[in-house]
Structures are given as structure tokens and as C-alpha cells.
């Protein structure tokens, strides 16, 4: 190995040869190539499955998923569109009570409009 200078741009042939020998696989290279080509063939076979077969395999789960989504959408949409329950007429017309009402009854002067309004609104 020659002395390595900082940022030497030349490969070190001796170190390279030693590392190459250390990293080279013991096994036959042709066996490795054959193995990769076998995988290549298998990949090609997998890729040649007709598209229609794949679509057919998706058909049933797809129908089930679409049905479920439709039902869920209907239920959710219905819940959203349903109006909120309104107060009954009897409850709306029932007399109100509270401190505002007491102030209205005990006052000596005619009530101000805002006091009347407050006595109606406050208990709610």
C-alpha cells in the first residue's frame, strides 16, 4: 500500500486488490447469475397475470365496500339533515319566573321596556 495523502484522487491498487480478494464471493458467479435470472423469470410470470383476473379478484370486496359506504353515508346524511327538536307550545307560553319578574312586580314606577324584556329572557 502506498502512503495515502489527504484527498488522494488516485485509487490505491494494492489496497484495492486486497479488499477485492477479501470481498469476492467464494461461490461460483454463474450460480448467482442463474439465481437472479430465475427471479427475473418468476417476476415476469407474476406480471403476466391477466388484468381481468385481478379486477375480478377485487370485484366482491369492492361491491361490499361500496355498499357499506353507501349505508354509512345515508345514515350520516340523514342525521345531519334532521331538524333539531323544537320547544312545545305549552312550554313556550308558560309563565316565567325569576329575579327579573320579582323586580317587575315590586317596582312602584311603571316598568321600563328593558326590565320587561329582561324578565322574559333571563330565566332561559
Amino acid at each position, binding site marked *: 500500500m502506498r502512503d*495515502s495523502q489527504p484527498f*488522494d484522487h488516485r485509487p490505491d*491498487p494494492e*489496497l484495492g486488490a*486486497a*479488499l*477485492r*480478494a477479501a470481498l469476492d464471493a467464494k461461490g461460483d458467479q454463474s450460480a448467482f*447469475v442463474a439465481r*437472479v435470472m430465475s427471479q427475473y423469470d418468476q417476476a415476469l410470470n407474476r406480471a403476466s397475470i391477466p388484468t381481468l383476473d385481478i379486477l375480478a379478484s377485487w370485484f366482491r370486496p369492492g361491491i361490499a365496500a361500496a355498499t357499506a359506504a353507501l349505508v354509512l353515508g345515508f345514515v350520516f346524511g340523514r342525521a345531519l339533515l334532521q331538524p333539531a327538536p323544537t320547544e312545545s307550545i305549552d312550554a313556550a307560553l308558560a309563565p316565567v319566573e325569576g329575579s327579573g319578574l320579582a323586580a317587575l312586580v315590586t317596582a312602584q314606577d311603571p316598568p321600563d321596556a328593558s326590565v320587561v324584556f329582561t324578565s322574559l329572557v333571563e330565566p332561559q
Partner: protein
Amino acid sequence: MGSSSDDEGLVARTLAGDRAAFGVLVERYAGQARRVARAVLGDPDDADDAAQDGFLSALVKLAQFDPRRPFGPWLMRIVANAATDRRRRRNVRRVEPLEPSLVGGGPRPDAAAIRSELGDRLRAALAELPERRRKAVVLFDVEGYSHAEIAGILGIPEGTVRSEVFHARRRLRTLLADWKEPMT
């Protein structure tokens, strides 16, 4: 390593479905791919699995390859990434630290033993380096790629590649000091 124009033709034929053309590419780069993978993984069987993953991954991505650029660095990037992925997935055991007798200071083996132990020692020394440094020194000193090409393969600046190669060499030299004389 084949010429760039050869590779370009083989890539085009592979894309057209020519099985034999892909076979030539695999034969041409098998040694290199296996060595780079072994530099990352250590174990030769894991390395072959990773190299195979790399070739098949390259096949899948072949349409993305820019034929104006050299094929080797593009392929090595994929192989190196495949090796790194495999190391992460399998949590490959780290090579045990060098025994004191290998690091130095122990009894010196005879000349015949030196040659047979050199490979083990180098692999152990490599295993002590950070992965990126390992890749850089192997791609530079073993596979003959330029700093610029290695920068592309590893996705790091060229200056960092120079630094990694320098530090890897220095470390290897330290670890292999006892073996320096027989090698030269």
C-alpha cells in the same frame, strides 16, 4: 466493467423484454454488486440476497434510468441501498471486534497463514468502519469509481467522499500495520 454505450444498448434491449440482455448486465455487474453488498453486510449470503434485490429493483426501475449517464453508478446506488435496507431489516449482527491477536501485539503468523488470514482481517477491519466510509473506499479503491461518481451513488458531496476515502484508508492502514510488509 462494460463500456457505457454497451450498457446503454443492453438497457434498451432489456426494456424491450430481451431476457438475454438483462442476463449480460447481471453477469457484467454481478461481481461488483456482490462485493459492494458484502462491504455493507459482511455476511456473504446476506450480501448475495441484497445484490439480487438490487438487480431486481433496478429491473423494475429501469425505465427511470437516464441513458445519457453511465449505468454502473446508477446500479451501484440501487445495490448499496438494497444492502443498507437489508441490514436494517434483518438487524444483521455486527462483526465481532477484532481479537487482540489480530489487531497486533500477538504472535505473528507464518507467511502462509498471513495470506489466508488477510481476508478475514480486512473484512473485520472494514466492519469497524462506518457504513458510508466502507462503501466509499470499496467503490473507489476496489471498483474504480471516481469521487464524483461515488458522490452520486452515495448521495453526498464529492468533498465528503474524498474525506471518507482518506479516513477509511488511514483506519485500514492502522489496523493492517502488521500485514503491510507481506503485502508489498
